[in-house]
């Protein structure tokens, strides 16, 4: 009997020896107790640490961001002058902001589109009973996660540098180029490098997510399929994928959102260059808020807010997909 941690998006624990019929439905409404007497005090004590930090470091900053965005404030002295919606109109007309938004979205969509399928394949392979050398592969794929993203950026800066980096050395040995070429000199090749390095770094985390999702597929289904003589491919497309679909939506969501946070890699690999062509939103905000004097807190806040709205719209679209997937799963009766 094994206890299994809930996979992202699947917030319950299953026991592998429980038959599907006995499984608790996904959103089981546990009868929660009403608090009485002394317990009320404990309840407040238990909530206090989270609430304190959450209200001061998430909720208040959210409200403050909205507030600052109507001022042309440099962070020093009183919050003034009030400029209404001028920050917004300036940003909407700021080509650099739009470059940042486009880059961030391109980056998020590309990394997600590449990292999810390959990490799923790796997870499927690494959960097969017959595969040799699992611990070794797990370690290799997981290792990049433990180096700070900025370091990854610096290592790849060197590996890709045109004079004596590994990439050019290899290309020269194969006679593909006769002189070093600089991947960071062009917007699209620089963006592509950002995407690939980010995938190299985060791959292991998504592999683990998928492994967790795969654990939630009841073994009985595979056994039944094996008795019916189903091939591995059939098992994958008819059992595994439909069942992990709702989790897949959540993992996709996490992937997109995490990719929208991209910051350290951009700072260390391209610093937004060549020129300003690989700016991403977090870098744009950072540059406006802390990267130049006088600080433009109001302007940065307005940019942050606008981007949050864009991200929220994307996430909500995903949310609708989640609901559809859940309905589908009910039809499968899993």
């Amino acid at each position, binding site marked *: 009997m094994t206890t299994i*941690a809930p*996979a992202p998006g699947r917030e319950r624990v299953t026991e592998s020896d429980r038959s599907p019929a006995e499984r608790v439905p996904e959103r089981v409404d546990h009868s929660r107790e009403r608090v009485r007497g002394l317990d009320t005090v404990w309840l407040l004590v238990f909530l206090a640490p989270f609430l304190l930090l959450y209200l001061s470091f998430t909720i208040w900053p959210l409200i403050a961001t909205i507030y600052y965005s109507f001022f042309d404030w440099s962070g020093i002295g009183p919050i003034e002058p009030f400029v209404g919606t001028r920050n917004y109109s300036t940003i909407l007309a700021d080509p650099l902001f739009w470059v940042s938004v486009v880059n961030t979205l391109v980056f998020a969509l590309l990394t997600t589109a590449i990292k999810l399928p390959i990490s799923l394949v790796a997870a499927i392979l690494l959960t097969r009973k017959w595969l040799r050398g699992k611990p070794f592969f797990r370690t290799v794929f997981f290792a990049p996660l433990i180096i700070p993203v900025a370091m990854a950026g610096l290592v790849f800066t060197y590996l890709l540098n045109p004079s004596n980096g*590994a990439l050019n050395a290899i290309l020269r040995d194969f006679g593909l180029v006769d002189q070093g070429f600089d991947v960071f000199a062009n917007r699209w090749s620089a963006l592509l490098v950002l995407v690939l390095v980010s995938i190299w770094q985060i791959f292991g985390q998504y592999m683990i997510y998928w492994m*967790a999702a795969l654990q939630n597929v009841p073994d009985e289904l595979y056994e039944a399929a094996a008795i019916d003589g189903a091939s591995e491919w059939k098992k994958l497309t008819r059992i595994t994928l439909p069942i992990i679909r709702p989790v897949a939506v959540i993992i996709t969501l996490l992937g997109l959102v995490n990719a929208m946070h991209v910051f350290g890699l951009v700072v260390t690999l391209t610093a937004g260059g060549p020129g300003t062509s690989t700016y991403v939103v977090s870098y744009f*905000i950072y540059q406006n808020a802390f990267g130049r004097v006088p600080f433009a807190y109001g302007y940065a806040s307005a940019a942050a807010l606008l981007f949050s709205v864009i991200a929220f719209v994307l996430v909500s679209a995903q949310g609708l997909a989640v609901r559809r997937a859940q309905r589908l799963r009910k039809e499968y009766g899993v």
Partner: protein
Amino acid sequence: MTTITQAARRSHTVRGNLIALPILLVIGLVWAYPFLWTISAAFKTQAGMFTSGASLVPDQLNFDNFVRAWVNAGFSGYFFNTVLYSVVSTFIELVKAALCGYVLARYEFPGRTLLYRMIVGTLFIPVASIIVPQFVLIENLGLLNTRAGVILAMSGGAGALYVLLFVGFFSSVPADLFEAAKLDGAGFLKTFGLILPLAKPVIAVVVIFQFISSWNEFNIPLVFTLGQPDLQNLAVGMMSFQGEYATDWTGFAAGMTISFLPMLMIFLFFQNYFTRGLAGATKG
């Protein structure tokens, strides 16, 4: 119960490995190369670095680079800060998520639904978009350019996901267990103490994820230690190192090696526990 004979299963195994292993090995090599390169560069001399930058075999084994990185370039300080930030913020995250998740899962109280919805709603707020007010807040608390300020900022904004993980886990604990504890006369705290050990898998996941993400945290230490290099963690310190010793690649590689080897050891050590914690008992 199987209908497949032993021999058939064996041939199936061999075929699967023959197809999968080469593919995985090639990918694995690509994945491992930057690590191997860094470790080998840490032993190279400056000259060797220049003539054979890409090779994985150092021209000679010298340890000067490590000494230079650790002593002159301040890696020891960055390392200390990184460990401190990671350990403390992981502890804070774990405590607040476990306590909050427990009461959200078990008790009905005014505002519970609102709080739950708020947590879900703010799950995907990018740190970058609220860092300015966080900065102002830390500044007003008088904690700018202090280690406490960095830790507070690191453990303040995150953790909504961890709360949800705990809510999910505690909701799935059978009600009979709580009933039994009550019949035995266990109070609020005692019951929590009895149930918490069951949450080991969730605790493992939260600890590992938070530790990794705080170990790698870049944006917050960068902004909150703008005036103070000696408070920086490895991720940010690397940048100053590069700024100051732009050409000292071997020293840089040595610093990197120093900083990732301990984490790699920890991962190797806990690897099985981790994969089991997150993905259940992976038969491997």
